[in-house]
């Protein structure tokens, strides 16, 4: 063990554990985290990539501290977004917990009763739990929580970046706040996160109520070596065979097969449908070549068993294995590291790309990233945006941002009305009878729903009253209404996000996965799933089970949409890339020609000089801003009466001329701009989140407007337009 100040501060058990790992030294984040965590008077954010030793960085000092605390009760509350990650950490932390001599309990929906009973009787040590299970404990066993968590030393939140800006993230903030209110003490929060831009904002997200400083620990380890390639493919406008997969797709799959087979890889295909499609093609290539299959899909709709089998196979490293996956394998499930990463289509964000690349790079080998990007074949009828080769340029821009260590900052604060419904009901259910002013003080004034002022909350509560979610006693106390009771009692209540009703897919009685009920499949239909082809032989609507048998044909099913917002800086970098017109060395021949076509056309259009173009009967705007601002510009134009749609990097205004358009803008600037809520009123359906259906249009629109529109940003661009 090399000289280390931090190491000496650890307890004997923790030291012993480090020795047993045969580590020659602590990683930089581990070294840096020990002192501030032991001090226990500040929150700590540990930002590093997957497999950089964040878990140990948090647990070594935290376990040291609580092992010195003679009080009984849970000492460390570990929160994780995934059950699988809890199972994983339970396995990994066992030896440390044993050496430090503290109890370790996993707690989520699939954990057996015996473990839970034991903790209930004798709360102690480390509790690994999901936000949903914590919600249930606070609601149903509030007084147990108050006692069991009385001497809580730390809250550790894993994969903190996955919570940012989501309903679950807001629920998590509220739960932690309610927990501190229940135990009447501030407990240091330790967030383990991917590296994000603007870590100060992340700190604000970790404790929106304030009241404790936050120490930010970022890995300063020397930059990793990265081997990089961007491969281009061209999709034909007229395909030779309609029934087959498109030529470009087959070429791409052949390359993936050729380049990746025989090693371990993660192939990110961004959507569940694309994941299935690619996994199936790769499996069939293996079969055709007469080699054992080593390509398997991994996504949220596959059964737990299938996913775990694949995770174990990756971990064992005994056979070459490639997972064709969605973001499910971006999170820190322990699968060891792989030889290379393949990115089919552009990554959703720079920080996500960083996470993915962090999975690669085995035993000191450089990380390998291959991007497979398909663009349309160009003809004289090709659309202007196709000609600009947007996806290729976006990848190039994202890579240079990645190399420059820029990452997306967390999204801005929102109203989160749907989650406020859940939290309001949960607090009422937890205590029995509470007053309106207390609810507001806890959840809004001192809690995470800080955008909701008392008048708005009063209006909100009245809505809950009208729908019988809550009701009022003679002395003014609010209690759950009969509708509210049914909502709270239902097993789906603990999740802040909506869980779509699903059919279970079964083969010979064994679960294969699930399909959203909104995408029904009839008996006899062929279907590709889990990388294989099946025929539906039975649909049991009562039990919600679809039975499958092997078949020869079938396509992957459609799942509901996924997507991520492109950030302002990414678009700015794209503009820069177009202007510089310097093809990076990591492009293959096709990609290079796409790049050159793009920059050539960009200049030809004069986009380096102007941001507005008239193309036939339409006007195209290029604000070079992120999706949120671009969408807001389109919405503002619509409000003004233009037929405008945002399509990625441009706003397309149909049936107008540049002259008419500019007149319209001038007129618009004479009047007061609409509010974000007014813009939301134009949206046909503003129901997005789980409990939105309880809320009236007015409140929903307020939330929708704040979430989707950036008015100052859009107005600034429109004002600056020549």
């Amino acid at each position, binding site marked *: 063990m090399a000289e280390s100040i931090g190491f000496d501060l650890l307890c004997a058990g923790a030291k012993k554990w480090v020795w047993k790992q045969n580590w020659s030294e602590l990683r930089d984040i581990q070294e840096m985290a020990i002192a501030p965590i032991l001090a226990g008077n500040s929150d700590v954010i540990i930002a590093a990539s997957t497999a950089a030793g964040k878990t140990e960085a948090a647990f070594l000092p935290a376990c040291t501290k609580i092992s010195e605390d003679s009080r009984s009760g849970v000492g460390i509350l570990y929160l994780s977004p995934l059950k699988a990650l809890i199972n994983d950490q339970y396995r990994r932390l066992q030896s440390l917990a044993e050496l430090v001599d503290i109890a370790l309990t996993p707690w989520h929906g699939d954990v057996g009763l015996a473990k839970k009973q034991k903790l209930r009787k004798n709360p102690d040590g480390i509790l690994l739990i999901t936000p949903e299970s914590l919600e249930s404990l606070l*609601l*149903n*066993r*509030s*007084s147990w929580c108050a006692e069991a968590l009385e001497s809580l030393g730390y809250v550790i939140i894993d994969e903190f970046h996955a919570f940012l800006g989501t309903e679950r993230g807001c629920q998590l903030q509220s739960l932690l706040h309610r927990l501190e*209110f229940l135990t*009447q003490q501030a407990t240091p929060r330790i967030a383990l996160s991917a590296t994000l831009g603007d870590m100060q904002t992340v700190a604000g997200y970790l404790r929106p109520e304030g009241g404790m400083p936050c120490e930010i620990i970022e890995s300063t380890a020397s930059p990793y070596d990265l081997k990089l390639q961007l491969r281009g493919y061209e999709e034909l406008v007229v395909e030779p065979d309609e029934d087959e997969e498109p030529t470009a797709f087959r070429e791409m799959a052949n390359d993936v097969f050729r380049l990746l087979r025989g090693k371990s890889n993660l192939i990110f295909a961004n959507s569940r449908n694309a994941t299935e499609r690619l996994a199936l093609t790769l499996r069939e290539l293996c079969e055709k070549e007469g080699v054992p299959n080593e390509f398997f899909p991994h996504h949220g709709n596959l059964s737990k068993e299938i996913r775990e089998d694949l995770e174990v196979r990756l971990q064992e490293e005994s056979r070459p294995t490639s997972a064709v996956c969605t973001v499910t394998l971006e999170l820190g499930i322990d699968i060891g590291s792989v030889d290379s990463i393949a990115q089919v289509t552009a990554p959703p964000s720079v920080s996500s790309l960083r996470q993915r690349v962090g999975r690669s790079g085995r035993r000191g080998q450089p990380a390998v990233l291959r991007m497979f990007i398909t663009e349309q074949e160009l003809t004289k009828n090709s659309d202007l945006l196709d000609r600009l080769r947007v996806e290729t340029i976006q990848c190039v821009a994202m890579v240079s941002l990645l190399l420059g260590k820029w990452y997306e900052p967390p999204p801005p604060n929102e109203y989160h009305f749907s989650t406020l419904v859940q939290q309001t009901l949960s*607090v*009422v*259910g*937890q*205590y*029995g*009878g*509470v*007053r*309106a*002013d*207390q609810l*507001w*003080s*806890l959840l809004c*004034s*001192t809690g995470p729903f800080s955008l909701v*002022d*008392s*008048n708005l*909350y*009063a209006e909100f*509560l*009245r809505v809950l*009253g009208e729908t019988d979610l*809550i*009701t*009022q*006693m*003679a*002395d*003014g*106390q*609010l*209690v*759950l*209404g*009969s509708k509210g*009771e*049914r909502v*709270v*009692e239902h097993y789906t209540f603990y999740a802040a996000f909506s869980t779509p009703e699903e059919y279970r897919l079964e083969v010979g009685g064994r679960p294969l996965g699930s399909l959203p009920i909104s995408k029904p499949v009839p008996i006899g239909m062929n279907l590709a799933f889990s990388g294989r082809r099946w025929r539906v032989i039975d649909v049991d609507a009562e039990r919600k089970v679809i039975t499958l048998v092997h078949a020869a044909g079938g396509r992957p099913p459609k799942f509901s949409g996924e997507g991520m917002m492109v950030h302002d800086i990414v678009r700015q970098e794209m503009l820069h890339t177009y202007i510089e017109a310097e093809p990076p060395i990591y492009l293959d021949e096709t990609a290079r020609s796409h790049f050159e076509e793009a920059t050539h056309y960009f200049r030809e259009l004069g986009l380096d000089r102007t941001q507005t173009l008239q193309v036939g009967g339409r006007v195209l705007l290029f604000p070079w801003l992120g999706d949120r601002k671009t969408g807001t510009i389109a919405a503002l134009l619509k409000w003004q009466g233009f037929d405008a749609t945002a399509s990625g990097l441009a706003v397309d205004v149909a049936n107008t001329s540049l002259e008419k358009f500019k007149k319209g803008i001038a007129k618009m600037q004479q009047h007061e701009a609409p509010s974000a809520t007014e813009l939301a009123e134009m949206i046909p359906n503003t129901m997005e989140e789980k409990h939105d259906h309880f809320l009236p249009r007015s409140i929903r629109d307020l939330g929708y407007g704040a979430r989707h529109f950036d008015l100052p940003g859009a107005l600034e661009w429109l004002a600056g337009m020549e």
Partner: protein
Amino acid sequence: MTSEAAPKLRPRERDSILQSLRAGVTPRTGLQHIQVGRAREVAALLGDIETVCDGGASFRLIIGEFGSGKSFFLQLVRNIALEKGLVTVHADLSPDRRLYSTGGQGRNLYAELMRNLSTRTKPDGGALTSIVERFVTEARKQADSHGKNVSSVIAERLERLTELVDGYDFAQVIEAYWKGYESDNDALKSDAVRWLRGEFTTKTDARNALGVRTFVDDANVYDHFKLMSLFVRQAGYVGLFVMLDEMVNLYKLASQRARVSNYEQILRMLNDCLQGTAQYLGFLLCGTPDFLLDARKGLYSYEALQSRLAENTFAKAAGVQDFAGPTIHLANLTPEELLVLLRNLRRVFASGDNVGYLVPDAALTSFLAHCQNRIGDAYFRTPRNTIKAFVDLLSVLEQNPQLSWEDLIVKVDIDVEQNSDMPEVEIVDEDDGGLASFTL
């Protein structure tokens, strides 16, 4: 109720009464010194106590607003019941204490009741062991005088219990206590008492310690009330009175299923009392109007209870109460009664002495007038705050004789009762925009 010629108070009694009142809780002793009005209600409960003493069963629901004096009334009845030789158990319901549950809350309530088990000589609870002792002593005496062995006397005396649910095990536990007594086995004795207190939580523990297969759990609380009522008879007491306060906690349960299963237990009590299947057993349950009347969550939401508890429509039409029905609505105190109440408080302050009052009669009327101006009619319904403010006022005057009551009364601030099960949230200087008086 109290004449001005009542006896003097002992200083300790005086201080404990005043301390309780200032904290807004019911004093344990000396209630007779302050009690006013409610003569008919008390008479009705006296009747209930008589019924229980005569081998019957009674069930009463006391309904009143927060702070209207339900707990005071309950305490008053408890003192009377103890005087009459009954054993009482009392407890507040809470989210963690219910009549029936699956997560330990039922057993919690039972354990709390047993902790508070009181007799005339032990009015402050903790009397369970002495009752068991008394039973065993009686059994020994009987055995000695009839030349029998003690175990068979115990078996004989508890034979009636064995016909009831869990009764056989109850008898076994008492027998185990005797064995521990006989063989100087304190561990066995204490296990038996722990079982009776509802402190066992698993079958295995109960079997290992006492050789019985059952224990007081979440589902059989009511059955154990019945067993206990028969047992205290055999120990030489008149009967058992069960007093449950803060019943509104059942109304507030977040789960309808949980609530209904608790209401079922109330129905069992009511049925057993009305049909005469329970003996030497009385129930007194206190709750707010919401708890009874709310058609969706209150007792009235449960059809069988509503029909049994519904007010006598003739009495209602005539504007009177039917004290023969199971439900008593605590009437508001009249202004005259409130005046008597203040007079009583003034006398308690003076240690029962008719001379040396801190304020003259004029101060009492002026205090009442001030209160009425401040919070209106509500204070007739909820005397708790009025009492607290008045006791505070007298206390200030006692310590600062130089102050004049006229100046102080106008400064008296009485808050409207703010009830909640949630602790208050500390917020720094922020306006809640009138949410404190929020109505749906």
